[in-house]
């Protein structure tokens, strides 16, 4: 374990991509036109296999349940919207209620991660203070710590504070930079920003807070965007934490609501299940679609999950 921290502190960790894209891999393809066609066919076949279940889920969500179990194809003769109306109203609250709950948790989590992780990252990347190396090593170790080892006492703590069945246990830790992965991501990013900029700002009389808030934050926008999008996707899909903390159907987020739907219908109304599954995936899909640039860059910067 100490080996890890020593290595990571001394040199950029594996997986660090410099912002240099001039070195491109071998371009053999041009010399082997024939094999290039084969490769494309292979890749397209692979891509279709990968994506087929997702497209089938979307198409099937517009089919009655009995048709779903008979039709592997993707052609849609009639659009059966009843799945959506049924699914939307299948639980104690309309499904929109759970979407709003999820949105609230996600907004809180994003705000928390952006604020707390960028503050910590600035300290680690730019400030010299006692025990910095020690804290930095602990931060890296905490990325690897399984969440399950702290969940029992955390639950007891939040239970004692009367916060079970509120969104506080889902949001508060984000304001305390417990997603250390993002701290690391931002540290890596800040290390790529020339120090001369800080020094110039200091010479102009800026203090650390001003350097951080007026200069660093605007420069860190790509890293902040990566953090926001990953936080969005991971928090939106998170199942374990809301499963533990959210006890009343009123406070359910989308994944827990979906699960209770599965229980309530004991897996019989697949059409409606599929419809609400599609609804729950749309926000992630949109975040992926519009944020992909930042996801790819962010994951390349630190290694990612």
């Amino acid at each position: 374990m100490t080996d890890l921290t020593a290595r990571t502190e001394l040199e950029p960790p594996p997986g660090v991509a410099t912002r240099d894209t001039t070195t491109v891999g071998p371009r053999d393809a041009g010399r082997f036109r024939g094999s290039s066609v084969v490769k494309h066919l292979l890749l397209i076949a692979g891509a279709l296999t990968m994506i087929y279940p997702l497209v089938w889920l979307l198409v099937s969500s517009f089919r009655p349940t009995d048709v779903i179990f008979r039709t592997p194809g993707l052609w849609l003769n009639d659009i059966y919207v009843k799945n959506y109306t049924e699914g939307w109203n299948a639980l104690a609250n309309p499904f929109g209620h759970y979407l709003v709950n999820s949105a609230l948790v996600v907004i809180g989590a994003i705000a928390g991660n952006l604020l707390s992780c960028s503050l910590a990252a600035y300290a680690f990347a730019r400030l010299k203070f006692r025990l910095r190396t020690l804290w930095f090593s602990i931060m890296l170790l905490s990325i690897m710590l399984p969440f399950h080892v702290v969940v029992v006492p955390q639950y007891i703590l939040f239970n004692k504070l009367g916060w079970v069945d509120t969104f506080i246990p889902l949001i508060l830790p984000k304001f305390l930079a417990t997603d250390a992965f993002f701290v690391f991501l931002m540290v890596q990013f800040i290390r790529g920003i020339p120090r001369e900029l800080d020094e110039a700002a200091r010479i102009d009389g800026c203090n650390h807070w001003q350097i951080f808030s007026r200069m660093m934050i605007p420069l860190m926008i790509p890293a902040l965007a990566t953090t926001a999008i990953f936080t969005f996707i991971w928090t939106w899909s998170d199942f374990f934490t809301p499963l533990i903390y959210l006890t009343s159907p009123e406070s359910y987020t989308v994944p827990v609501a979906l699960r209770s739907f599965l229980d309530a219908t004991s897996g019989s109304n697949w059409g409606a299940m599929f419809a609400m599954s599609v609804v729950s995936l749309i926000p992630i899909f949109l975040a992926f679609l519009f944020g992909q640039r930042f996801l790819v860059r962010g994951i390349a910067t630190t290694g990612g999950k």
Partner: protein
Amino acid sequence: MSVISELSHIHVEHPQSDEDRRAQRKAAGRDNKAGYLFLLPWLVGLFVITIGPLLASLYLSFTDYSLIEAPQWIGVHNYTRMLGDERLHQALKVTFIYVFVSVPLQLALALAIAVLLNQGMRGLSFYRSVFYLPSMLGASVAIAVLWRQMFGTDGLINQVLRLFGVDAHTGWISDPRYALSTLILLHIWQFGSPMVIFLAGLRQIPAMYYEAAAVDGAPRWRRFTKITLPLLSPIIFFNLVLQIIGAFQSFTQAFIVSNGTGAPSDSTLFYTLYLYQRGFGQFEMGYAAAMAWLLVVIIAAFTAINFYASKYWVFYDD
């Protein structure tokens, strides 16, 4: 507000000479107060949300605690109880199989596709998006629901097999022989995120190495084993460490596919699922804490082994 006023105490004068600049550097070198203020939220989180609970769970692991009465010290009883807990052994077996089958397969596939895509393929960003998407969606309950249908007796997989003339009536998820394989497949399906990391790593390998090898007439496979693999080994290692740690903690998919039970015949009883059942189903918080600590020890051991073994195969180009 006090944070901001504290931070603004640090002023820097305009440097006049080298000596002044050095003095200023020295002053700037002492950022103790500012450093700890910026770090404050993280420090509070570290102690209240991480280290505190970490120690508390160590203490609880030596107690009998059901949330209602105060914890009762029972020594190492929770740990000795593990020795005879057959469901725990089953959970360990299931989790080990899952980790050691799905992680290597997923990384191998990710590496293969990344190498293929890196050969100056047209449409790189399109393929990358398509392969990357499942790893963004895969952790969700919705995909687990889909998986449940797909691998059911009359699910999508059997329907497709029947199209090809196979009289398929296997309940992939209800048959204990196959249930875990469906979850392994789900893990492999999400190879996109390690693939993206590999692609970024491959782009760092200077093209001249390959050109030199091509001039020397090295065949393609040798170029892969002698150039690509060694230069990519730090990234393979990084992915391996993170994926193993992550796979040990898999939970959602097994929970949804088995209705939280680990069925059929505990064949999908992931370690964390069993921990959840003990802790939050039966409220045996002491036992759950002991299980969590065993998980930490296992993960730490495998991470340490990984780091030790890396000396023999990871190549650092210094």
